[in-house]
């Protein structure tokens, strides 16, 4: 099978084209090139996936090797792409959702002066992300991994004239560097101990190579280091701090990069390495615990935030926690399932939020919204679907994936994780409906001027919303629970995760599963009910609660002071060390050495300058004398 390369190549070609054409393409041409390339990439991806689906399940892996990237000693890295059921899901999500967001952006960014630069970055991101998910070895994946990080930095700081955006971009980059460093160290360990960075070789050899206590220790270290990378990219404790700040970027960027695709790269990576993680139970445990902690932690912060995009950002962090919990309990396919549904509804939420922000002349504060259901009917309807979906109400997509995570956690015996998930889903439902109510229901709280200008968004923005809403509604049905032998989505991923199937699942009676479903739905409904009661029926309850627990509220509003703590613990000492290096090492030692050399040269050249007459003839004479002397040497020492 060839032709996989064309999927990432298309957005890259669009980048080249946009760079070459410059402003000659015009806005319309730019939009066509950018959207067209991603749309085509989606079409090619779809074709490739259909080809993949034609194959018998145990042979579902298409490899397309383009050539050798480089060769060092006996190590060689190929530029090679792999399409298996796992990357198929990812590539469809990335190109499909990416395409919708590209289309949306043409409307959202219509008045942006740097229109072309935006799409250039966006296409570059799509290229990097597709490379990441399609890579056939860790090294190429790392290229994509760094590429998406770079694009994320560029796009967060897209409005670089705004100090906040520039700072946020820098923060995202630095925090991600920490994670990437861990990832790189993990790769080193894997290569040293595993002997290869190629997925197939590495995973096939892993059980032998990492046998025994020492092997288990090694693979635990490697997987933990890889997980450090994942916490950076996927915004988990302790490296989640960049994601809320990343909301300084344009909203389509938040939707594409910081909700649907890039932040899920960590989950994808962990799922991709499930063979390794299963060799290291401790790492799995860590993944689950970190996921649970992040999910709860972020959810609580989300309750107290007033910026619509920040609420969504913390919600993303929290949902990513769910995915990691799923991976941590060994339910990788459930994690990927949630990844997919989350991509649908979270992209929809962000795009809807963007539509709201657009309608309100760039207002992002929930306290100055309200009553928007009537002026923004399409936005309202789609946002409602997404909110219901994320809260976990059947029959929307979020319900199926979240329920699967919950039931798998419970059935695999991780009861405490299950409890955390349950609590998390109550919180999720609560803060999401808080957002919904503050935004669309109640009385309008914006200024008259803004209220006067409220308008529904153009079709280029509405159509992606509707498509995503449809996906949010039906997208979960392929994960219908209680089907004998696993549901279609699980069966699709089964070839990848065959040795990761959760043991004991099929021994449980349907009754237990029904009970679990009922509990999770009840939790969601509880959260929804609380939100309606606190923010719509009796707003004074919320105020009263806030006053009563002022300390707690303060803590939540200030996000547990985590940024400040990091500032004191890490950033300040780092500045101090850097300052010392600057003052002493650079200015005294390095500069001193350089200046000393210059002084010596100056002194020496004062003497040597006498030989330099400036006449070519003199130089030629010296030259000829030198040749004569050389010949004399040959004559004396034949």
């Amino acid at each position, binding site marked *: 099978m060839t032709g996989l390369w064309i999927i990432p190549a298309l957005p890259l070609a669009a980048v080249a084209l946009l760079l070459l054409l410059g402003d000659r393409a015009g806005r319309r041409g730019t939009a066509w090139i950018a959207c067209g390339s991603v749309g085509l990439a989606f079409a090619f991806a779809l074709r490739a996936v259909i080809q993949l689906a034609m194959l018998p399940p145990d042979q579902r892996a298409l490899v397309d090797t383009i050539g050798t990237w480089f060769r060092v000693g006996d190590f060689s890295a190929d530029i090679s792409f792999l399409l298996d059921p796992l990357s198929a899901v990812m590539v469809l999500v990335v190109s499909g959702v990416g395409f919708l967001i590209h289309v949306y952006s043409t409307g959202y960014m219509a008045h942006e002066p740097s229109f072309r630069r935006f799409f250039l970055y966006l296409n570059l991101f799509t290229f990097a992300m597709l490379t990441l998910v399609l890579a056939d070895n860790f090294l190429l994946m790392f290229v994509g991994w760094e590429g998406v990080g770079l694009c994320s930095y560029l796009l967060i700081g897209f409005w670089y004239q705004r100090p906040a955006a520039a700072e946020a971009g820098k923060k995202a980059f630095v925090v991600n560097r920490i994670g990437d460093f861990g990832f790189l160290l993990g790769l080193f360990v894997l290569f040293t101990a595993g002997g290869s960075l190629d997925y197939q070789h590495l995973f096939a050899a892993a059980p032998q190579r990492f046998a025994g206590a020492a092997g288990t220790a090694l693979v635990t270290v490697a997987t933990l280091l890889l997980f450090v990378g994942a916490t950076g990219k996927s915004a988990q404790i302790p490296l989640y701090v960049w994601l809320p700040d990343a909301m300084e970027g344009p909203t389509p960027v938040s939707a594409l990069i910081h909700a649907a695709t890039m932040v899920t790269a960590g989950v994808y990576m962990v799922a991709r390495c499930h063979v390794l993680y299963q060799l290291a139970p401790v790492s799995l445990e860590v993944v689950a615990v970190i996921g649970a902690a992040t999910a709860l932690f972020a959810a609580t912060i989300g309750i107290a935030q007033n910026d619509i995009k920040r609420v969504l950002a913390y919600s993303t962090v929290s949902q990513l926690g769910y995915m990691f919990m799923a991976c941590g309990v060994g339910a990788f396919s459930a994690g990927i399932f949630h990844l997919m549904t989350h991509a649908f509804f979270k992209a929809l939420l962000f795009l809807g939020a963007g539509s709201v922000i657009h309608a309100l002349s760039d207002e992002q504060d929930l306290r100055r919204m309200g009553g928007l259901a009537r002026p923004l009917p399409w936005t309202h309807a789609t946002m409602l679907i997404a909110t219901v979906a994320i809260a976990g109400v059947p029959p929307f997509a979020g319900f199926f994936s979240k329920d699967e995570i919950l039931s798998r956690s419970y059935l695999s015996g991780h009861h405490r994780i299950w409890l955390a998930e349950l609590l998390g889903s109550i919180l999720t439902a609560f803060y999401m409906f808080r957002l919904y109510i503050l935004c669309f229901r109640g009385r309008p709280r914006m200024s008259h001027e803004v209220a006067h200008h409220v308008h529904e968004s153009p079709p280029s923005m509405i159509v992606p919303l509707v498509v995503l809403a449809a996906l949010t509604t039906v997208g979960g049905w392929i994960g219908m629970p209680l089907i004998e032998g696993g549901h279609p989505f699980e069966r699709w991923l089964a070839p990848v995760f065959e040795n990761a199937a959760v043991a004991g699942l099929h021994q449980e009676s349907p009754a237990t599963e029904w009970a679990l479903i009922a509990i999770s739905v009840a939790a969601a409904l509880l959260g929804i009910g609380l939100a309606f009661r606190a923010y719509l029926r009796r707003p004074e309850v919320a105020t009263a609660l806030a006053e009563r627990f002022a300390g707690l509220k303060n803590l939540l509003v200030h996000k547990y002071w985590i940024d400040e703590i990091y500032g004191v613990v890490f950033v300040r000492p780092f500045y101090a060390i850097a300052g010392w290096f600057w003052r002493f090492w650079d200015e005294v030692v390095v500069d001193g050495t350089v200046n000393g050399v210059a002084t010596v040269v100056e002194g020496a050249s004062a003497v040597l300058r006498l030989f330099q007459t400036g006449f070519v003839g003199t130089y030629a004479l010296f030259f000829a004398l030198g040749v*004569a002397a050389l010949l004399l040497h040959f004559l004396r020492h034949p």
Partner: protein
Amino acid sequence: MIPLLFAAFAAVLVASSLLVILHRNPVTSALFLVLAFCSLAALYLLLGAEFVGMVQVIVYAGAIMVLFLFVIMYLNLGHDVEGGVQTTLRRGLGWVVGAVLVAEGAMLLARGMALGPETPQSPPPPGGNTGAIGLLLYSRYLFPFEITSLVLLVAMVGAIVITRGRTTPAGPARAAAPRAAAPRAAPPATPAAGPPGTEPAGAPAEEVHA
């Protein structure tokens, strides 16, 4: 016959080379250099390198030396004036060094250094060795050959850029009127660096040649 011809052409070569550096008039020097190159081409023919010999005439005599003549005529140089104590010293030293070099080379040759046994000669192909040279150029030496074109391109661009200079912003206008590109010759040399636009640009000549 062949040693005879070799001796004759070698004598012409050495004599004309000497005259190149001895003659005061640069034009005459250049003409003797042409003669030296032609006799060198004849030597190449004697050595069975007929293609190289012909290319020697085409490239050196037909192109490079014409360029030299152009420049000499354009600069309108008379006889060189040599003199002064320093010059005499330098000339003396130069001759000494040259003589030393020849002596050393001859001694090295006399010791038979670097002279391996002669490889048995294969009979020359009926069509000459041109085809074999072409095959080598386009196979083993393909990359250097292609790089060569780059070298020539760079030299061409360099020559044009250097001779145009930065003094006249209205460069294209000048290039479009090559009639004005006539060097003054018969009247005694006026300053060549005239006002912009009237400069006797050797441009057509250099562009032609590079």
